[in-house]
């Protein structure tokens, strides 16, 4: 703690900062960004391993018959059942089949009250079916879940899940005969995908939700240790896609992911992360360090981060994580011309996973919860990525600290104190400074003359006369520190208020406004746009208020320093919850916000404003929309599709916030937006 008490050391550090802050921030940003992206390079990350000994993956002999005939039978029956009415999910059929097997089977009704009256019916009813296979050896204190979303055939947007249902039935039939289960197994079939899962989990844990009204469950079991979500179509699949990103960027324990990957590999099924195939070379550390491998791994990692950043669950598993239940989704993908895994192989995979989970003695607590995956079997842990992220965020903080010193130093020096100023520490610099003082002193007198003439000049300005002032150029605008602080308070308050409006706006507007004949998606988008454009002109409005001078009269250095500190705080705390969102925001926002400063050059000012608008939350949303619709024929189509996508995205974001309590929308509107608005005021300030 030497630098806190020892003036000399402090001085040295501060001189270093003051002299090199531009270089330091640039360097730390570039090194941070480079380092972060380099983590996908194979020699820089690590190979996954099992931390939890109890899992014993793949150790047991499979006890399934070579061909699981019941699965094929169930599949055929289910297909016929589903074809009778392609718009309905086969609730009844599943219910009766499980009953036939002799398992405790229940249904749960729930209704969804859509916020914003977004569906004309407003209340939509759904039904979950679930069945509990009681473990013979214990008293239902722990449970595992195999969940399958119900999707009718007519729903072409998403792949069918019929295979999963048939498999669940066949496995239930097999599992029932085994004596070794030590945890109950719950087979869960959810209506409306995540919404049904949410309703079931709410019912299971007896928590309330404002928008999803779930009935109580008739049958229940113990604490759920893990959940596997199956999304398998009726056909034989070619490869499995592992989905792990949960609500608010939460991830399952890495051991569970490893388990799924390992057991897929054991059955010689191809397993991928975000549909990215990978070379075996990258996995086994022999020769995965070519540039091609790096590109592959980087795009896998970025894809994973892309999904994680959205904060929306990528499948049913995401909601289990909300309740401290480790869970992943296994999606079967049909693609022509590749090796197939039939339903028997898939059954063996699932059996293996459940028997491994059955071995668990305690909850998943080893291994990692914070990680990024550049491939299914390589990982980057929190300890590896945090330093690089920290460096990126540090770029802004360095500038913030230096600006703070610049604003707080001058008044102190006027009082002649050896405070934060380093200059007094060495005599050599002292002499130089004295010379400098002389050269500046004349200009200094002029400045003081001006300040004294102005009507607002207070006692503090007079103090300046007697003091020996060193760093001059900005001194005109710099008055007493407290006064400066007061001058930026309105900007901060207005920014906060606008952020709050953006957060509450859509809901308030829909409540107050009469129903237009427009869709809710449009409604939300336009209300957001309206608030955003209103926010864009707020510096101009504040200008008008300061009647005499036509400039925003405040200390931009202080404002920027406060804004930078707040930005760093917001981004670092976000990084703990959702590193991906924090990474993308930092990568885009920090360079622009660190560089922005008032200037007289009209062109430069406009350039700064354009850059700021480009990294504003609204245009980030548009960018996300455009990027996610990238393969399009013409630029025009790209833009229209991108616009439609971002509309959808904002709508889903707001919906997730209401239905699942997702935070992304809140973070963007109530945290990132106000911070951005503070920076937005800076180019409007006159630089003199």
């Amino acid at each position, binding site marked *: 703690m030497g630098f806190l008490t020892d*003036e000399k050391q402090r001085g040295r550090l501060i001189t270093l900062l003051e002299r090199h802050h531009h270089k330091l921030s640039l360097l730390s940003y570039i090194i941070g960004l480079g380092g972060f992206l380099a983590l996908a390079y194979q020699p820089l990350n690590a190979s996954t391993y099992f931390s939890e000994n109890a899992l014993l993956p793949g150790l047991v002999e499979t006890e399934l018959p070579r061909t699981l005939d019941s699965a094929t039978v169930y599949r055929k029956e289910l297909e016929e059942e589903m074809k009778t009415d392609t718009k309905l999910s086969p609730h009844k059929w599943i219910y009766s089949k499980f009953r036939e097997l002799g398992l405790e089977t229940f249904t749960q009704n729930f209704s969804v009250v859509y916020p914003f009256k977004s569906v004309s019916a407003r209340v939509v009813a759904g039904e979950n079916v679930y069945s509990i296979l009681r473990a013979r050896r214990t008293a239902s204190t722990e449970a595992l879940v195999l969940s399958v979303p119900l999707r009718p055939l007519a729903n072409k947007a998403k792949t069918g899940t019929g295979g999963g249902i048939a498999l669940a039935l066949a496995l239930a039939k097999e599992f029932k005969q085994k004596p070794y289960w030590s945890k109950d197994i719950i087979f869960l079939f959810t209506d409306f995908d995540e919404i049904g899962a949410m309703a079931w989990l709410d019912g299971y844990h007896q928590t309330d939700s404002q928008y999803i009204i779930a009935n109580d469950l008739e049958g229940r079991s113990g604490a759920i240790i893990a959940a596997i979500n199956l999304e398998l179509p009726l056909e034989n699949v070619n490869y499995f896609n592992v989905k792990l990103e949960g609500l608010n960027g939460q991830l399952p324990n890495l051991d569970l992911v490893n388990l799924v990957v390992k057991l897929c590999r054991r059955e010689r099924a191809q397993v991928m992360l975000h549909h990215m195939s990978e070379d075996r070379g990258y996995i086994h550390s022999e020769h995965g360090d070519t540039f091609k491998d790096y590109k592959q791994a980087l795009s896998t990692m970025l894809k994973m981060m892309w999904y994680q950043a959205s904060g929306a669950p990528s499948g049913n598993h995401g909601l289990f994580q909300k309740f401290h239940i480790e869970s992943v989704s296994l999606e079967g993908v049909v693609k022509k011309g590749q090796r197939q895994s039939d339903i028997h192989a898939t059954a063996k995979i699932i059996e293996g996973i459940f028997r491994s989970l059955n071995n668990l003695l305690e909850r998943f607590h080893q291994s990692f*919860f914070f990680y990024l995956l550049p491939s299914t079997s390589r990982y980057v842990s929190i300890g590896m990525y945090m330093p690089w992220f920290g460096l990126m965020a540090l770029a802004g903080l360095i500038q913030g600290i230096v600006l703070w010193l610049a604003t707080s130093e001058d008044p102190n020096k006027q009082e002649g104190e*050896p*405070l934060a100023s380093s200059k007094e520490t060495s005599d050599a610099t002292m002499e130089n400074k004295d010379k400098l003082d002389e050269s500046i002193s004349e200009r200094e007198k002029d400045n003081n003359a001006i300040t004294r003439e102005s009507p607002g000049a207070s006692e503090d300005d007079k103090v300046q006369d007697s003091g020996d002032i060193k760093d001059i150029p900005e001194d005109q605008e710099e008055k007493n520190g407290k006064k400066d602080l007061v001058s930026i308070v309105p900007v901060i308050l207005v920014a906060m208020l606008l952020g709050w409006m953006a957060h509450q706006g859509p809901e308030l507007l829909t409540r107050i406004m009469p129903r237009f004949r427009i869709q809710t998606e449009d409604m939300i988008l336009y209300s957001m746009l309206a608030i955003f454009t209103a926010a864009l002109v707020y510096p101009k409005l504040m200008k008008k208020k300061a009647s005499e001078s036509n400039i925003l009269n405040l200390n931009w250095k202080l404002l920027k320093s406060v804004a930078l*500190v707040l930005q760093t705080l*917001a981004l670092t705390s976000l990084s703990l919850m959702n590193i991906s969102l924090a990474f993308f925001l930092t990568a885009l926002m920090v360079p622009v916000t660190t560089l922005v400063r008032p200037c007289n050059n009209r062109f430069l000012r406009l350039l700064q404003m354009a850059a700021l608008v480009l990294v504003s939350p609204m245009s980030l949303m548009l960018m996300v929309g455009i990027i996610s619709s990238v393969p399009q024929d013409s630029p025009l189509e790209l833009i229209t599709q991108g616009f439609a996508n971002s509309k959808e995205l904002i709508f889903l974001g707001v919906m997730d916030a209401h239905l699942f309590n997702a935070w992304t929308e809140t973070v963007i509107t109530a945290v990132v937006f106000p911070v951005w608005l503070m920076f937005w005021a800076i180019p409007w300030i006159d630089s003199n």
Partner: protein
Amino acid sequence: MAVLGAYFLGTFGIFLRIVLMKTNFPKWLQSRNEVVTPVTSWERVEEGFSLQKQFISPYSGDMFHETPLALRCLKLAYYFPFDGVKTFFIVIDILTMIFLYRIASAFGDQMLKEQAAEKSEYSPKAESLLVTAKQLSMLPSTLIAVHVFNPFSIMTTLAMTTSSVSNLMTLLTFYYLIKGNKLMCTLFLALSTYQTLYPLVLIVPVALHFYRNSISSTSAQSFVSGEAVSSYIITSSMFLILFGFLIGVSYVLEGSWDFLFSTYGFILTVPDLTPNTGIFWYFFTEMFDHFRTFFVCVFQMNAFIYTIPLAVKFTKRPLFLMYVLMFLTSIFKSYPSYGDAALYISLLPLWKHTFCYLRNTLMIVGMFMCCIVLSPILYHLWIFAGSANANFYFAITLTYSTAQILLFTDLLFAYIRWEYGLYNGKDIRNPDGSKTLIILE
């Protein structure tokens, strides 16, 4: 002008609190263990009420830790108009603001008086370090402004913790101390000690101050003479009589001594290890039982032991000593919360004249902000998401303690440096004309 400003700010503050009370923010705050501790939770007070209603002693269980008198007085809260309890806490906040205002103006007068008395001893070069009436006229509104925007006091009021009541008691002690009203001062000191025990240490500055007031000439002050000791004894016995009276009344009301263990015993032996902003919980969850007593003593000693060296150092500045002790209590007490920080941060501007010597302002403010933002996040990651663990949350509470200690030492340094400046001149130059670097060793 300044008065008008204070009124305006105060009204704004109340408005802000009323608006926030209407949201669901208070409900969330009540579940935050940085804000609410077992000894200050309103929920537990309500538990006590209902137990009493059932003719069960509230002290028979492990829920209720308020004192018997508080149990009876806090019932008043239900008789307040509009929402009862909420209004009660807003009224407490208004009272806090009124007394902050009064403290600030009384403190200003006291400062000027002391300064006039001691001016002959000061260095002639220290002119600019002296406080002026004009600077002091802004003090009340500054205090109010800090209280209005202080996130800690906002959270304390919104969470409806009883620490806002005990803070008010301490403020009243401070106010009557400045005013020189011995009876009221010892009465409120007894009340706040009765309520939370730790204000016990404040008897030292109180005794010093009343002795200092009683003697006329400042130069002939001796704080260890027989006269001084008898003055200390009078003040302390007044306090002890009042405190004993309160305990006696409690015994009569309760009909047993059970309450002593549930209140002071609970504070001193720290049986509840719910995570909070303090240093106790993490340490004692890891403790083997047979070391427990020893370490409880060691930890509790921290809250009291520093009174002696500080009293020796600041014998002549009892008001600063009082403030510093309040500060220390909030760092070392067994169930600290943001409520304790609310008290000393609201009073911090009293030492505005020494702020030019503060050295780590940005860092301390940054640390406090980090703690406010990160502690709920890390708590969520630990308890709800299960992805982090206790160490994450402990790290942030440690940061909070560190930030407090940094602010404390920084303020202490600034005050000593300011005093040094008074006697040695503001601008101390080496023989060659360069500025001297003053280092505290």
